[in-house]
């Protein structure tokens, strides 16, 4: 099936771009490849889970969050000399060991997992809406209260810093 191959290609690009994103020294490159990663995930969601979730992924992550990242990087405007010396070899050594451990963990956890059929997994926007506002309405409201608290907290913290 051709769509399966498209999904596989998107998955490979997503993993590669994620790897590139965490290995670049210049944060703006990390942001660009993170954006590529978001787009690929959006594609996978569109084909695998639901076009609605895919579109939301692209709006929220590629549209808003990526721009915020890039904006923050631009305001700091780090040059190479600001980034400090490269990490020491010992740190790198342990990082590689930790990475291997994480990959091994992921493989063991997902070993017996068979992905559900593509058709079975297509969820419409109406279904998402019903799930959010009927079955999971309490969790939905709690999350929104939590987010509002976070926003208020951020404003309070920012204000304090300004007065000092």
């Amino acid at each position, binding site marked *: 099936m051709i769509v399966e191959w498209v999904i596989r290609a998107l998955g490979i690009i997503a993993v590669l771009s994620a790897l590139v994103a965490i290995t670049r020294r210049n944060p703006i*490159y990390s942001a660009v490849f993170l954006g590529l990663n978001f787009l690929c995930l959006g594609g996978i969601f569109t084909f695998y889970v639901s076009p609605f979730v895919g579109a939301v992924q692209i709006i929220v992550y590629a549209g808003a969050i990526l721009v915020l990242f890039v904006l923050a990087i631009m305001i700091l405007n780090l040059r190479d000399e600001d980034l400090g010396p490269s990490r020491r070899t010992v740190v790198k050594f342990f990082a590689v060991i930790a990475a291997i451990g994480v990959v091994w963990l992921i493989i063991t956890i997902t070993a017996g997992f068979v992905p559900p059929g593509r058709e079975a997994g297509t969820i419409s926007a109406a279904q998402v809406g019903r799930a959010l506002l009927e079955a999971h309405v309490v969790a939905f409201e709690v999350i929104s209260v939590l987010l509002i608290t976070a926003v208020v907290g951020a404003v309070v913290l920012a204000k304090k810093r300004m007065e000092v």
Partner: protein
Amino acid sequence: MDQLTKLFYSLGLSPYYGIFVAAFLLAVIILAFALLYEGVATYVERKVAGDIQSRIGPNRVGPYGTLQWLADGVKLFLKEDFIPAQADKLIFRIAPYFVFVGSFLPFAALPLWDRFVPVPMNIGLLYIIAVTAMVTPGIVLAGWGSNNKWALLGGMRSAAQLISYEVPNAVALLIPVLIAGTLNLDEIVRAQGGGGGILRWFIFHDPFSFMAFFIFFTAGLAECNRTPFDLPEAESELVAGYSVEYSAIRYAFFYMGEYGDMFIISAMASAAFLGGWQLPLIDPLVKIGWLKAVLQLGIFLTKTLLLVLVMMWIRWTFPRLRVDQLMELSWKRLLPIALFLLMGAALWTVVFHGKGIYDLIVG
């Protein structure tokens, strides 16, 4: 898209390749249309500017200067493609593609005539919002990659502006979605037909949707970086903002992106609020299928291009806002109004069971 795939299938091409060939062909057709429109739009824009400022406008190439846009296009293609030595080469190169792709992809999801969308999808409206969101990173990266004070400032302003105006824009667009009960653009347009003529258009559905149209159009102007919201490129303070270091075909990408965005915002406004390809008397009078489709396509394009013309008219009439005024307009005016309208429209839908003013009066 489906029809094309079937056509290739009937010609003996396997469906696997058929999809690719159909997608490629469709992309070429849409790109040709978009480029043609963008070319002619630059000519019309200059003529409109000339008329409003009591000048003649372009009048040298071809009769009444009608071939000016071709000459401009050839010039942009042939000019030297210059990359500043201090610029970040990779970022500088890829940024225009983000902008162009973001303004070109939505063309695939426009409802052109009855039950015809080039690439049919259930979430057409959301898809258009999603892919146009890719323009913002492009502009920001262009500003950063140029390594130039003005470009950087232009890029930052643009990021702030686009993120701010995306919110009232999307909230206002939720109101037709609420009335029609679907994200499918074709179904949204079809819901605006039937008896009652233009009174069935969603702009006349209820007072809230009437105001939502203007909120959407205003926020849309800002999304396109058009005057009075063209602060990212403000010539008098930022030279040309994020595009200051760009020349030749890379500059043309930004320019075409702006005109593409104008078309998309106008097309969305005409499809979601002004009835898309609906016009009274077409349905009962025209019985031949293909003629109807052609007429409907003409109606949709006419409505869209008229709105584009309004955008040009606004550009040459109003002065630009100040940065703080721009932010205030979005967060303190447009967004609260849009949220209020959304709540009002939701209440209206519940109280009157989704009926518009026309339905309530006539019965």
